[in-house]
């Protein structure tokens, strides 16, 4: 089982968001970057579990400049065997997906895993785009992944139940909560990660969309405190002021 896991670097979830250059660029000064939680906790860990039971390899791939190498090291420390960095400052998801699809094209990965979405640009786009570019089946927001014989058995949550999808491989999946539990790298993993090499591949730019400008949402007005003894007032306000009841 050879699995390719797409990982992306995102600002730590507690980052205070601000912009520079006339609101055209994210201000990354003093920001701590982490592996996108869906990619790390769910996609990568499930890939490693499958490798541990079935054999094979786990390769992580990320599109970005040299500054993203710490998150690649983290993925290697958790247990990935190989790592690829496509040297490109991608402008949009299509550019990212094209770079990954081009790399993966003749490499015979059985499964390509992406996360549900990045927590910075919140697109849920890259996985589906890779599948489109490689003409492979795609299951989005998968909560379970098992291998049965030469098929992948995937589950997704639907309204009032689950759907169990059996697919030939190769296929592309995006991973949501449920697929695995987060793992913490151990000392051996961290030491081993230091000596692993990161393959760097040149990328080509070809974006379809671009960010014109950023803005911060209008600040919320201060909370209205209600006397705990007067829940009738709260209900009245929800009815007549907020108009949600």
């Amino acid at each position, binding site marked *: 089982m050879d699995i390719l896991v797409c990982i992306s670097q995102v600002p730590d979830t507690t980052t205070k968001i601000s912009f520079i250059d006339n609101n055209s660029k994210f201000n990354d000064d003093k920001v701590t970057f982490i592996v996108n939680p869906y990619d790390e906790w769910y996609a990568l860990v499930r890939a490693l579990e499958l490798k541990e039971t079935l054999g094979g390899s786990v390769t992580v791939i990320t599109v970005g400049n040299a500054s993203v190498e710490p998150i690649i090291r983290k993925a290697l420390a958790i247990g990935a065997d190989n790592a690829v960095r496509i040297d490109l400052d991608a402008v949009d998801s299509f550019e990212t997906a094209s770079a990954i699809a081009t790399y993966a094209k003749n490499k015979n990965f059985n499964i390509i895993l992406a996360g549900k979405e990045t927590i910075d640009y919140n697109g849920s786009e890259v996985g589906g785009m890779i599948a489109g*570019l490689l003409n492979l089946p795609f299951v989005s927001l998968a909560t379970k992944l098992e291998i049965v014989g030469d098929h992948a058995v995937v589950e997704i949550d639907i309204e009032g139940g689950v759907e169990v999808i059996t697919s030939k491989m190769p296929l592309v999946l995006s991973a949501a909560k449920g697929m695995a539990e987060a793992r913490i790298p151990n000392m051996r993993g961290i030491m081993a990660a230091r000596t692993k090499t990161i393959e760097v591949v040149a990328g080509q730019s070809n974006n379809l969309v671009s960010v014109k400008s950023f803005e911060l949402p209008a600040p919320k007005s201060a909370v209205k405190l209600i006397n705990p003894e007067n829940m009738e007032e709260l209900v009245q306000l929800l009815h007549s002021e907020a108009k949600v009841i």
Partner: protein
Amino acid sequence: MSVLVFAQTSKGILKKNAIEAISYGAQVAALLNTNVTLLATGTATAESLQVAGSFGVAKVLHANHTNLNAFDSQIYSQLVMNAAEKTGASVIILSHDATGKAIAPRISAILKAGLVSGAISLPAVSGGFSIKKNVFSGKAIAEYSINTEKKIISLLPNSVPPIQKQVSCEVENFLGGVEETISLLKIETKTHDTSGEINLPEAELVVSAGRGMKGPENWGMIEELAKTIGAATACSRPVSDIGWRPHHEHVGQTGIAIRPNLYIAVGISGAIQHLAGVNGSKVIVVVNKDAEAPFFKAADYGVVGDAFEIVPKLTAAFKQFKSQNS
């Protein structure tokens, strides 16, 4: 250059997300001075599809075939592309729900059509084509330019309200080659009993609780409150992690993101990762015994006090309100 909206019917009707996409499509077509077509799938009647005419869509292509019964993103993507070709559409609009997330990126990559997913505004069309969407989990908004001739927009649910506009509406059957496709997937559905349960992602009202509830045995009052107002129930991550509540109730950065009209949070501190999944709610009510809890900064209404006393009182007040207003 015209506009195509894709929407699935569910149990024979076009639900809220679909109506929002339909009305949005009609408004985009008006901005671009062009016409709009709806591609609808599922076992709906022509009459039930004519509701599209109440939101400004005069033409519906209805694709109903056994090959569409199970959702295979490859087949659905092909169907949408075939409908776009037939209608000469250069703008394709869908909802940013589970279906939209599975097919919009695929179509974007195949057609090389720029995609903005989770749009929260109508496009600005003078001197380009740009649309706003939430980024950084709702902590900021970005305006994206779509630089390609073909464009795809997936609309964030509950963000652009539908506008009524009556036109006469014609429904035509359309298969678009779907009868010849063979799914590479085997898809089985396992349902659990949901009678009386409200689907969280689509709920208009949500009652959510966190670690402040102390244990699963105390959820009765949360469910009672939810039942009283017809709300879905949700929870914070630690609560689903320790198994007090089912995983599908976990909202936030790493669970699901919801945008109800009303979110009532009980005994939840309001960590940034929790807020990331709920800050799109129209109105937030926070019940917490700690006046310093960060959630109060994101709330519209707050009650400082013990949930075990406040929740039953709130439920009683809602019951009283309902008996007076029905």
